[in-house]
């Protein structure tokens, strides 16, 4: 386990190095100049040059990159070109909101997605299976922009049950969480259904059934446990992506998360913000994958994370 963790950390450092270098180069190669966004509609070439110098944009890309990496080494992420606020402070402030939203969405998506997928597999080709499959296709194809607005109109404007926007307690969290959970739930339904159907056709299930094991324990222990690996993989991927922010959902519901922050950074070519968000995003994805690996280790004895048992 220790070796595995060390390996992962070494890999993470390499990954961060590679990702920052690629992102830095790509963002700099994009058309558009951050200074034009900072100076408004009227500014002389001298002032533009002065500001460019001030933010270090007058130096070559490699020098800028080295400057940024040395800043990171000091535990800083620089200041936003536009707000002049420390990027790290903003990320620390916004990340808990993103975490809440992602957790809220997964708390809804995982139980319902797995449950409906399981039912759908057990009731293959029956009415309920067709209904659930249809709903999951809808869940995947309806954009969150539309579903979010519909939920808002219904729960906020018609029923007056939930606040339409803002960042706050659970009442503010419900609508964006439900909106964000729909595509993840739909994916989980489909993955669970396919995996469960696969497992159901395996010889050991027939053996178990022949041995007279009750349907309930067959479903819960033999089928479900064996179907868990791909399901957990999907959960990990979805959760990781949500932790990197959900731009549309956060925009519709005015939720102050990493997604909106990143998007604003990209639109304004606010490089310190873009870089900060990407670094945090990378860390999050690596961490989630690490957790998923550990979960694999516990639910499937065939998977050994140190790789010496086989």
């Amino acid at each position, binding site marked *: 386990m220790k070796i595995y963790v060390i390996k992962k950390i070494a890999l993470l450092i390499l990954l961060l190095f590679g990702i920052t270098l690629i992102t830095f180069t790509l963002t700099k190669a*994009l*058309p*558009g*100049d*951050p200074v*034009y*966004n*900072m*100076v*408004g*509609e*009227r*500014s*002389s070439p001298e*002032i*533009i040059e*002065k*500001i460019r110098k*001030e*933010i270090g944009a007058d130096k070559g890309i490699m020098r800028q990159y080295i400057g940024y990496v040395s800043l990171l080494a000091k535990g800083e992420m620089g*200041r936003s070109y*536009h*707000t*002049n*606020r420390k990027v790290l402070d903003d990320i620390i*402030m*916004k990340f808990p909101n993103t975490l809440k939203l992602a957790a809220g969405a997964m708390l809804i998506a995982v139980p*319902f997605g797995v*449950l409906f997928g399981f*039912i759908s597999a057990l*009731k293959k080709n029956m009415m309920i299976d067709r209904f659930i499959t249809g709903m999951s296709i809808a869940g995947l194809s309806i954009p969150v922009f539309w579903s979010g*607005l519909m939920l*808002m*109109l219904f*729960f*906020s*404007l018609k*029923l*007056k*049950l*939930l*606040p*339409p*926007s*803002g*960042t706050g*307690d*659970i*009442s503010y969290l*419900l609508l964006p969480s439900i909106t964000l959970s729909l595509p993840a739930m739909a994916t989980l339904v489909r993955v669970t259904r396919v995996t469960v159907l696969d497992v159901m056709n395996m010889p050991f299930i027939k053996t178990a059934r022949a041995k007279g094991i009750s349907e*309930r324990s067959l479903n819960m222990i033999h089928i479900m446990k064996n179907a868990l690996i791909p399901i957990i993989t999907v959960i990990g991927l979805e959760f990781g992506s949500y932790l990197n922010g959900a731009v549309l959902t956060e*925009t*519709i*519901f*005015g939720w*102050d998360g990493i997604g909106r922050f990143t998007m*604003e950074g990209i*639109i*304004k*070519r606010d490089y310190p913000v873009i870089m900060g968000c990407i670094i945090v995003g990378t860390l999050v994805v690596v961490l989630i994958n690490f957790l998923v690996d550990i979960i694999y280790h516990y639910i499937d004895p065939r998977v050994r994370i140190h790789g010496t048992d086989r």
Partner: protein
Amino acid sequence: MIQRLKVPFINISVVLTVLLAFSSCSSRDRLEGHIYYRLSANPTTLDPALIVDVPGGSISAKLFNGLVKLDENLNIIPDIAERWEIKENGTVYIFYLKRGVLFHNNQEVTATDFKYSFMRILNPKGRSPNTWVLEKILGARDYIGGKTKDIYGIEVLDKYRLKLKLEKPFSPFLNLLSMTAAYVVPEKEVEKWGEDFSSHIIGTGPFILKEWKHNNELVLVRNNNYFSEKAKVKGIVYRIIPEDLTAVTEFELGNLDVITIPASEYSKYSNSPEWGKLISSMDGLNTYYIGFNCSRPPFDNIKLRKAVTYSIDIKKILRTFYEERGRLAKGPVPDILRKWEMTFATGYEPEKAKKIVEEERMKGRAINFYVTADQEVIDIAEIIQSYLKKAGFNARIKQLEWSAYKSAINNGEADIFWLSWWADYPDPENFLFPLFHSSNHGASGNRTRYTNMEVDRLIENGQRAESHVEKNYYYMNAEKIISEEAPWVFFWHKKDFTLRQPYIKNYRIYPIYSIDKGTEVSF
């Protein structure tokens, strides 16, 4: 099996019930006596030195004051200066400050604070993009360039008297001093917070910044020690809601008191007997236009520029697509600032356009039409494209996001582009000098790269003029030449519309955000 399936469904309903039980009502817990406004984006900063966006400017007007300000009729009136004298052919301004004006930290405002605030904008090591506001002061350019350590044009005569000397006469100078960049800030607080001053704002205004939850909301509370008319509301809450439809929902639920009506909702509210009477409108100080790149073919040719103008039925677009949310533009200067007669230089004459296109051998030749990725702009661009096609032009729309778009048009990459200009201050000069003077090509405002020495001379004369009559004479002649030479297709001056709740009293909108100090509105 049906029996077994009941269990999960019961679980689902239990979870939903629990979730809803946790939730509160859709109406927010409002702060008593506070008025709720919407902002579509988080203000970039509230530091007057750095503000370039409207949300930041609009809020800072309630937190800060300058020497002078604008009244609702766009006249310059005293703010912290109780009076001023203009001497030496309009090159020397002496301001007499009101006594007892306090910053929010109870420190008195003196002439030294103004000198500090102005020098901070012009600081060679600073990154203020607003230096142009004060660079007319004698010695300012040398100071920005790091050649001197003081600005000899700014002199503190005593605690309550400030002398400003200009390089040369500049008739809109007082207008410049009403802008955000000329607000006074307290030296001690600025030095204490440094780059974080924006989050710890201390000004002199009728409101005090209480809380700023970035990307969520800003709360301002009334300044009870304000030196002028005090606010009638206890405070202002600005809620940051990026999505228009969400803002409309919030408004209809009573969570917002005033909203700017989104274009998509305009007809719904204007046709409603209930809401229609609660709409306020204002003729905006802006001009929407298509700009030509006048520095290279094909649009260095006046005839072709005119052909584009002839080919578009602007009146029809304004009436149908734009639902009359603007007034037709006769030239670059908005009609409410224009003190002279002006007629339309060109109109919709498609046959004339076709003829010119044939004569100039432009038929089918591709021209790049740059637009931003805003949906309304794209719709307008497509309408224009179809008109141009009828005349024989082959306009290719190129959508770019704002940052790339600005780079492209500043660098002269577009043949034609769609843009608007909004007033910094209410003077025709603001619609002529930055946009058409040959010294301002590119990012300084003249993105069409229009060059006409006669226009340059007329604008410069207008800037130096001592009387309004003289000033208007020069500006009128400059505008007439510009209108004739058509570096722009002049579209319209957009109107602003806001909608308020029935219980909101004394609310009005102003042509320039800095006029609104937020003191009049009440419940």
